[in-house]
């Protein structure tokens, strides 16, 4: 991997964004940018689309809610019907609070697990993709494939004020 790519570290986020735009314009493929916080406008510069996590959460919430309502109806109206307080077996309005809670639980926990899986994060994993330790603190990193023209790519980095080219 390292032979095919060139990395650079920037001190300012604006320089990173400018460099990212230039690198893409010159036809290089950006592997990723690394920033200590979500930088406004970087996704546009890199050309990544809107995250689809919202849809994941919607599906998970519906799964949780359907499971909860289904389980409660099955338990109280089919598996073991019992009369409580003269209510009908399928007294679904009483099942709404738990349906809501389980919908939220599935959505929240499930979406975070999806995020971790998609971002390849798991306990004990090594941050091996990271170009330099400083990018989680106060520097901005970029990694791009040089496609056989490493000098050209490095020049774009230095022209845009890279602090270090790795």
């Amino acid at each position: 991997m390292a032979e095919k790519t060139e990395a650079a570290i920037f001190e300012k986020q604006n320089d990173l964004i400018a460099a990212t735009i230039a690198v893409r314009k010159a036809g290089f493929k950006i592997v990723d940018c690394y920033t200590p916080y979500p930088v406004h406008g970087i996704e546009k510069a890199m050309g990544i689309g809107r995250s689809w996590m919202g849809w994941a959460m919607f599906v998970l919430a519906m799964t949780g809610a359907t499971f909860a309502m289904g389980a409660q109806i099955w338990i109280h109206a089919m598996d073991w019907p019992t009369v409580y307080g003269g209510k009908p077996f399928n007294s679904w309005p009483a099942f709404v609070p738990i349906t809501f809670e389980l919908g939220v639980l599935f959505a929240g926990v499930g979406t975070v697990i999806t995020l971790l899986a998609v971002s390849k994060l798991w306990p004990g994993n090594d941050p091996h993709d990271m170009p330099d330790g400083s990018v989680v603190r106060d520097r901005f990193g970029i990694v791009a494939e040089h496609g056989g023209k490493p000098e050209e790519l490095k020049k774009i980095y230095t022209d845009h004020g890279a602090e270090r080219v790795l």
Partner: protein
Amino acid sequence: MVDLEKLYHNPMDPVLDEEKTITQVTEDIERPLVGTPGPLWWFAFLIAAPTAGMGTLALLYTAFTGIGVLGLNKTVGWGFFITNFVFWVGIGHAGTLISAILYLLRQRWRTGIARSAEAMTIFAVMCAGIYPLFHTGRPWFAHFMAPYPNLMGSLWVNFRSPLLWDMFAINTYLIISAVFWYLGLIPDLAVLREKAVGVRKFLLSFFSMGWTGSARCWNHYEVVYLLLAGIATPLVLSVHSVVSFDFATGVLPGWHSTILPPYFVAGAILSGFAMVLTLLIIARTTMNLEEYITKDHIEAMCKVVLLTGMLVGLSYGLELFTAWYSGNPYERFLVLNRSTGPYWWAFWTMVSCNVLVPQLFWFKKIRRNLAIVWVASLFVNVGMWFERFVIIITSLHRDFLPSSWVYFRPSLIEGAVMVGVFGIFFTLFLLFCRFLPMIAMAEIKAEVGNSQAAREKGGH
């Protein structure tokens, strides 16, 4: 085009007192975590930890002897344990309110206090959970509350019972709050990982999950954070509503009332913010974070306390009015008995601490005087504890049959558990201050960095 300059420098919208670079922010927040803790921290810890130990012993004594050691009797079947349970769940509301609702409302001052308030929420909900668990008398059968196929039929739990709703609500709230908190912590743990050595390095690497700060990851991360805030908002409102159903679906005067859910939620926010004030006024000094948890933060929280204090006052008034207007003799008796009966002192403590004390916060000078705010926040904590006490005990102690009327007195063990659980809470919070970043570093850096970048861009 949005005027970023204006957006990031709204005087009503303070994040930091002065300009800092993101490098300075990182170092400032890291500092209390790498040195040795100061004498004030040790002083607090050496009080909190033994108290927590005493509470644990008292809980074990209760579990092994039976709940006969509590001051409960046939008339007052819910005593100190349930009072404290509702109190702690209420405290647990401020964290998610600050981190989720204020996030959605774009109250950017929340950034500095969100992390510690979330931690407080998690610890408070854990403390709350202790009480119903031990109040069952046989905590080792706690799994009976969960619906699982069993050899007794299978015999299921009753999903129509508000007590079961409560179990689901509290557990969901605990899990979602913890997930929300942990998700925010991952980037900050990665920062600490880079300079750590030895066991610390191993632990931080393990829990930061190989975080690299990848822009593709941030893109998903920001959406997930926003969505979690979105689902945590109805959740936080639902939790105390469900707790109030434990009472509101009963037929006792004083409990059987439709005002209870909003009344409980307003009270929960009041008590939660009071507890955040109590903790943070101390923590900002001991951890040298005055530049991050500023007087503007304290002032903003005081305003929330003032508002919710008046909402709670309105609820008290509505209870009185409804009792009179309903013409129901039991309700009328209850209201008179609460305010003039044997527990009059508890009722008036509640009213003065929750409604009168917050009125001080009309004055800006008082809102910015930390000593007064701190003392007032203690009064509100006491008042909100008494609110739970008044709701539970005064509704129970006068049964429908005068022959069952009693005066509830807590036993020594109940007192020890109550004090001990406060010890557990403070111990956990002190450990959090010592070992984890109290301020959401990445969020502060996003505020600072993005605003500086916007200004530089404008200047060229």
